């Protein structure tokens, strides 16, 4: 099979059967995403990229010639190589995107934990009437204001 493809560059070998299977998969994929959003398991802002991927799959199944055009643009003779490269790059981009989101959320969680720890400590300090902690309760009541002034 590989040899046949190599011998006839520029030809996309998709039978109508594979095209139907690919289109069905793409539709199923997009329905799944819709369902996830409907059940609040996936937020809309993170779903856009997946819909684009689903549409891409559908387009590829409907018009196999598209892939050939893209392969030519990339300067790749074998359309299969072009397809895998594109998918690989997309997945890499997605993974990076997730790392960025994860980093931001990790920072937010940390800050939330810190704020909560400080709040609780200040509440404790107030409740104890500030025994053995030097500063007066008044000062502890206005931490924000003092921080801004300083």
């Amino acid at each position: 099979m590989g040899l046949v493809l190599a011998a006839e560059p520029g030809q996309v070998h998709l039978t109508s059967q594979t095209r139907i299977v690919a289109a069905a998969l793409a539709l199923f994929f997009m329905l799944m995403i819709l369902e996830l959003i409907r059940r609040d398991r996936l937020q809309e802002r993170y779903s856009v990229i997946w819909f684009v991927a689903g549409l891409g799959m559908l387009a590829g199944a409907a018009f196999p010639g598209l892939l050939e055009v893209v392969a030519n643009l990339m300067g790749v003779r074998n359309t299969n190589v072009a397809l895998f490269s594109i998918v690989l790059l997309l997945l890499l981009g997605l993974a990076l995107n997730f790392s960025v989101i994860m980093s931001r959320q990790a920072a937010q969680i940390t800050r939330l934990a810190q704020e909560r720890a400080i709040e609780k400590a200040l509440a404790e300090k107030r409740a104890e009437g500030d025994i053995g902690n030097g500063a007066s309760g008044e000062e502890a009541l206005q931490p924000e204001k003092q921080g801004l002034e300083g």
Partner: protein
Amino acid sequence: MRSLVFIPAWNEEDALPGVIADVRKAIPGADLLVVDDGSADATAERAREAGALVASLPFNQGLGAALQTGYLYALRGGYDVCAHLDADGQHPAEEVARLLAEVTADRADLVIGSRYHAGAVAGSGDYRPTFSRRIGTSVFRFFLTLATRQRFTDTTSGMRAANRRVMALFSRHYSPDFAEIESLQLAVRQGLRVEELPVRMLERAGGSSFLTPLRSAFFIFKGLVVLLVGQFRPRHVETE
């Protein structure tokens, strides 16, 4: 001049009460805060029994996040100066008092207690680092000196004192993974006066170092990446 001493602690129920008592004795004028970094043992309870105020992070966030909590508390609380030391009993509080005095006298914005500084070795033979720690120390020393063009001997020291400019900076930017080294690089790049002071340190009272050879190698590699990336960070003009 209001000062805060904070102690980041993670599962240090054995050593912590001694450290708190030491700080109370050596620095009686300062407020004391223990930042409990999601300890599974009785660290927070021991700290309260010893009379310290405790800020408990709901889950373990790492040393950097714990230290940042302390800086944030100091900034919000309107403290003029703050200092922190390790909870494991390696840092004598009287040495911390010397660091605080340095910042209070406004000779520096950030003062690091160094166990390797020329002046430190003469005074005591108390502290003996392990082999892998010595390698890591010299690697970081070399690259941090290269990055900041300022000589540092003890890059990973957890005994420091700082003023409000540093509190403002560190409560905003503080690497959760590479707290000690990156914070030095950051402070120097922001144009803050960072200074090392030779101090005496002790063997750890309890627990063992987390550094095995393999982890050390990874630690060093990660540190170098962090330092390299840090060189490309923008220099913010701090507004406080």
